[in-house]
Each structure stands twice: as C-alpha cells, then as structure tokens.
C-alpha cells in the first residue's frame, strides 16, 4: 500500500482515536497535576433557623479572582500521586522503617486506600479471569454438543447474566445472600451456624464478589468460544475419531489449540474489565470489605466536596496499571505476529 493511500485510509480512525481516546487521557493527566486554588477564608456571620453563629466560610469573590487569574488551579506536579490517597510514598517508607516483620509491613500497607484497593482488585482479576474462561469454555463445549433444536434456547439462557444490567444483577444477588435471603439462609443451614452472615465477613464478601464476577462475565467467553467452535475443521475431528481419539483427547489436542488465539483475546478483554471492577462493589454495598480503584474514583467524586484532582490521579494510575497488566499478553501477541510475518 502506498503511504498516501494508507494515510487517507487511516485518517478517519486516527482522528476519532485522537478525539475520543487521546484527548480525554491528556485532559485527565492535566487535571491530576493541578489542584484547586487555596480558597480565601473569612470569618462571617451565618444565620438560619437555629440562630446566628460566626463561622469560617469561603470568600467567593476573592477566590473567584484567583480562579480567573489561573483557571487550571495550582500546579502541583506529581504531589497528588504520592499523597496518602494514592501511592502514599511517605507512609509506605514509614511503615517499612517501623514494622519488624514483612507481615506487619503488609498489614500497614492494607491500611492505605491504594494498596487495599489493589489487594482486592488483583485477587478479583486473577481469580475471575481464568475461572470465567474455563467456565465459558465448558458452557460452549456443552451447548455445542446439544441437539440443534435445543441450542437456541440454551444460548439464550447462557447469555442472560450478560444481558442483565450489572448493577441490577449484583443487587439481586446481594438480596439473595442477605442473612434472611434465600442463599444466605441456605448457607447458614449448610454451615450449621444461624449467625453466619456473608455481608459481615470480609472473606465471604470477597468470595461472593468473585462468584458474581465469574457469573456475569462467563457468557462473554462462552459466546466467543462458541463462535470459534463453529470453525473447528471437521475433517481433522473425523480423522482423530478414526484414529480412536476419545472426546477428551479431541478437545485437548484439536479444539483447545484451535481456540487458543480466542483465549488470548478473551483474557485481554477480561483482564482489562475485571481490573476496573466497580458495579458489584456498589451493588453489594461492599465498600467496608472490598474497594477497587474505580470505586475510589467514584467515592472521590461523590462526597459533598468533590476531589477532582485525586480522582484524576487515580484514573491515570488505573490506565498505567491496565497497561502493565496487559503487557505480557501484548508482548506475546506481538511475538506471534512477528513469528508469522517471517
């Protein structure tokens, strides 16, 4: 392809990527290195139904003048990234100095919002992703083995968890695992402990969130693998059968290698998605037990005073983390590509 042809072919995509991907990222980056101006504080008399008091308040006009002079705010460099709400450099160093054992050090780390969020997010990502790939694969194989007339119905039901809005799906599950809900009571019966409450226990809440994550995302893996199964070369399968290969051997030596590129694809998408876990934490009201980077962003923006710079910094850190997380898969894809090109 000529360079000019390629340029005009790629230009619309490139422009769209610039506007919808690069520009927002640049904007978030800028917001994360600037913070609001120090407000001009005055003592003023405030009156209301409960009488008058002299209270501290912001001098709007003076603060507005500061904002007009420098609309971006105060330049703080990477200060926000290093503060306690984010990488907490000083606190981590202090914890390292004062803890006598590695366990104590990690205990201290778990007290800092970013590291606490990372502990849950990484566990969630690395348990959910392989589990949902395996589950999606099993569903795909099973549905594919069904009689043609039943497949449509089976596909529809297998896709339901993905069709249900995540927040609604998590809320329904949340009510079911309530200590007075269907599942909650059943689990109490199984454990023979009438006081057992999933919502009051951090490990059980993590398990519930992870099960929800697998349940809601497995259909995605299923759909992709099911499509892949339709392209498995039938003559290879037949010759394997003639050679006496069992069903398991057919799956192990023909189907799985055939679907491998799709596994990479699903892993890529799901690593990214699971790392940004958010809705189940909200739906399960699980913030006392589990937090994620996305939840921290939401929380920073939903207080009575919105912390835009803090939220922007966490957003940038999410992007960086996702890039790090995906790098092995991306490198692998790149190697495969080069290998094939040769």
């Amino acid at each position, binding site marked *: 392809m000529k360079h000019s042809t390629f340029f005009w072919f790629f230009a619309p995509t490139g422009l769209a990527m610039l506007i919808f991907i690069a520009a927002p990222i640049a904007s978030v980056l800028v917001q994360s290195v600037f*913070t*609001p*101006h*120090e*407000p001009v*504080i*005055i003592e*003023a*008399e*405030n*009156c*209301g*139904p*409960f009488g*008058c*008091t002299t*209270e*501290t*308040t*912001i*001098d*709007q006009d003076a*603060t*507005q003048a500061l904002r007009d002079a420098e609309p971006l705010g*105060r330049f703080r460099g990477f200060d*926000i990234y290093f*503060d*306690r*709400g984010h990488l907490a450099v000083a*606190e981590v160093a202090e914890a390292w100095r004062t803890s006598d054992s590695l366990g104590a050090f990690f205990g201290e780390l778990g*007290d800092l*919002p970013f590291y606490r969020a990372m502990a849950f997010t990484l566990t969630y990502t690395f348990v959910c992703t392989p589990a949902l790939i395996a589950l999606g694969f099993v569903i795909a194989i099973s549905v594919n083995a069904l009689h043609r007339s039943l497949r449509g119905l089976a596909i529809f039901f297998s896709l339901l968890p993905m069709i249900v809005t995540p927040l609604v799906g998590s809320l329904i599950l949340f009510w079911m695992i*309530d*200590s007075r809900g269907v599942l909650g009571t059943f689990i109490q019966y199984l454990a023979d402990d009438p*006081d057992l*409450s999933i*919502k*009051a226990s*951090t490990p059980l809440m993590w398990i519930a969130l992870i099960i929800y994550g697998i349940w809601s995302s497995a259909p995605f893996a299923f759909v992709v693998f099911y499509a892949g199964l339709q392209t498995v070369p039938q003559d290879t399968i037949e010759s394997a059968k003639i050679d006496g290969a069992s069903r398991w051997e057919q799956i192990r030596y023909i189907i799985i290698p055939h679907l491998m590129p799709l596994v990479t694809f699903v892993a890529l998408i799901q690593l990214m998605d699971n790392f940004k876990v958010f809705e189940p934490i909200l739906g*399960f*009201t*699980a*913030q*006392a037990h589990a937090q994620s980077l996305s939840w921290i962003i939401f*929380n920073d*923006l*939903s*207080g*009575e*005073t*919105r*912390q835009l*710079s*803090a939220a922007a910094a966490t957003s940038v850190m999410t992007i960086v983390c996702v890039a790090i997380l995906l790098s092995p898969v991306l490198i692998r894809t790149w190697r495969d590509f080069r290998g094939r090109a040769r």
Partner: protein
Amino acid sequence: MKKTFALAGMAGLLASTAMAVATLPASADGHIAGCPDSGRISIVGNEFPAIQTIGAGAMACAEAGADVSTNLTSEHQTINIPGMQGNPAEYTSAIVANSSIVGLINEDVIRPLDDLIAEHGDGIQQNQLITINGQVMAVAFMANAQHLVYRADILEEAGLDVPTTYEEMLAAAEAIRAAGIVENPVGGAYAAGWNLAQEFNNMFLGFGGSHFEAGTAEPNVNSEAGVQALEMMKALSEYMNPDFLTHDSNTTNAEFRAGNVALMNMWGSRAATLVDAEGVPQEVIDGFAIAGPMTVGGGDVPASTLWWDGWTVAANISDEDAEATFLALKRAIAPSILEDEDTAIQAVWLIDGYEPTPAAEGVFAAAQSGTIPYPMLPYMGLLHTALGNELADFMQGRETAEQALADVEAAYVAAAREQGFLQ
C-alpha cells in the same frame, strides 16, 4: 399485567396532581395563583416524604405554563454540583441541607436570593432565610434531627423505661435480648460511608468533641471524645443485625417495619411516616413511638445534630428562570400546604402557621435540648468523607479506635491539602 401497573401508576399520578391542585386555589382562567406562567424550573433533591411534597407542589405549576421537572433521588448529592456547573445549568434549584449547601457554595453555583426576597418574599419568615456572610443563599422549609424511635410494646414487655442516654439504651438492649424478645434489638444507619460517619458525628458531639481545632482546618477527631464515641458505637453494634455495615437509613427502617428492631436512632424526616408502608405488622404500628435524642457519657448535649432542609436557586441561569424557580418553590412551601393533614405530619415545617404534631416531638426535643447544628464549614465535607471511609475497619475489629481515628485524620489532611484548606 404490565397494563395494570401502568394504569395504577397513572391513577396515582392523577390522584397526587388532583390533591396538589385541590389544596391550592386555581383561578377560573386556568392560571394558578402564585405560579409563574413561563420559564424553566428543574429541581434536584433528596427523596424523603416532605421533599416529595415540595417537588409535587412545584410540579403543579406545569399547568400554568412553566416548564417544570424534578429529580428527587437519594443520589442528589452526587449530581447536584455537576448539574449546576454548566451554563445554563441543568438544575435551576437544588434542595439542600446544612451539610450539602457547603459544596454548592464552595463551587459558587447558587445565587444570592436577596433581590428575589425583596420583590417576592412576602410570606417567608425571617428564620427561614439562610444567610451566609450577609447574603441569603437558601430558604429553609423544615428542620430535622436524628432521635430515638422505639417499640413501646417491647419496652413494656421487658419492663423498661424509655432510654434517655445511650448507656440506658445498651442496658435496655441487653435486657430485651436476654428476655428473648428480639435477637438484635438495636437498629442504626451504620452503612460504611456517609451514614457511619454521621453516626460518629452524633456520638462525638455528644461526648463533647469538636471536629476541628478552633478557628482552623486542622482535624481534631483523634481525641478522647473520638475514642469514646467509637467505643460506644462498637458496643451498640453488638446488639445490631450483623450486616449493620450495609444498612443505610432505608434498610434500617425496613428492619424496624419488619419488627426486627426495638430501639433506633432515626431521622425525624423519616420517622413520621415510618409505619405507613404496606404490610407492616399491627404490633409494630401500635408499638411505634418516638422520643427526643439521647445523651451519652453523662453529657448535657444530645448525641445528635440539628439540620435544616431548604431550597436554593442556581447561579448559572437566566434571571427569568431564577424568578420562575423562586416563585414555584415559594408556592410549594406556602402556609396553605399545611391544611393537608398528611403533609402537616411529614416534617417539622418552618412554615408560618405550623403546629407541632406528635410526630414532631423528637425533632422539637432535639432543638430544645441544645443539640448542635451540623457544622457548616467549607472543609467539613472532606472530614465526613474521610470518616466514612476509615471507620469501617474499627467497626469490624481490624483496628483500634486510635488507629482508625489517626487514619481518618491522615486521609482528611491529604484531601484538605489537595483542596487548599491546609498547607
């Protein structure tokens, strides 16, 4: 099935409109008294019964030709600032409380109302005006406070008096549990986040704490009062449903309605209509009773906070829309709304001609016994957020009270530095 629901909804809508119209006189030409006949009115606010009434009152002006819409949701706080920062603002009014007005003032998205009051202020009482640095920024229509809500029948069965202190509440809870009447007799909105932080604020003020070092933005919660407050909360939580960290005020009320709770600290704004819902057992309806807020640790100041709810008008809208919004909301809080009995009991109205109903007893007791108003400081919201995030660790027994409070202060300081309140 679907059709039936739609019809039922429609009927409900018609009934509520009819009621709203009936309470306020409409003149013969279709022009409704007091309503603006043009302009855009868009209201965002919380969703408890009294605010629903205000919203419906403003909606009635749609008949007169104004373009009215309301968005009443418990998530109002997340959307009101973004919805008022645009120009023109999406929302022409936010219904706020003494906590949430601070964010709006910090962001400069609401306008002073002095000129509108001068022109149309008749019928609004002086004590309804929220004045900040000499400018009227909001018009309050109701007062609110958290206070005791209890089951008189259960206390009687256990042979107990109505508790006036948290220590008595603990003793009563123990007695009720020991008598096998209710397993988890204490209720409380202890959901991690805003609710948990608010319960701490109550208890902290009850123990004589003050959130900041006088005259500064330096936090002061890691103190003796803070530790005592947390320990009392922890002691209470032993008598709560084990899921208490997921129970907000709606869930706590549902627990009370289901008959699972005998004693709880609850918002006055929700208490009045607490047992009106469908399917509430008769003994809960009969036993439902309210009393003033409790004190704690031998203090005189109740472990509660005083609140007002009021409406504001957005800064980034045309003067015509501002005037229309003002008029519609003024009409929604007109003294004549009190003629409706259901409306009169919904809240402690600050409106002219309001006669306290028995449902208002708790909030009145709070106001009379010197309850401290929720602090209207520009940095209070940051401390509230930090408390909500960091206290759950202590409530789950993962940290000591001192550690949790040190975490609160550290989280607050990081946020206050970002916002420029601390250097």
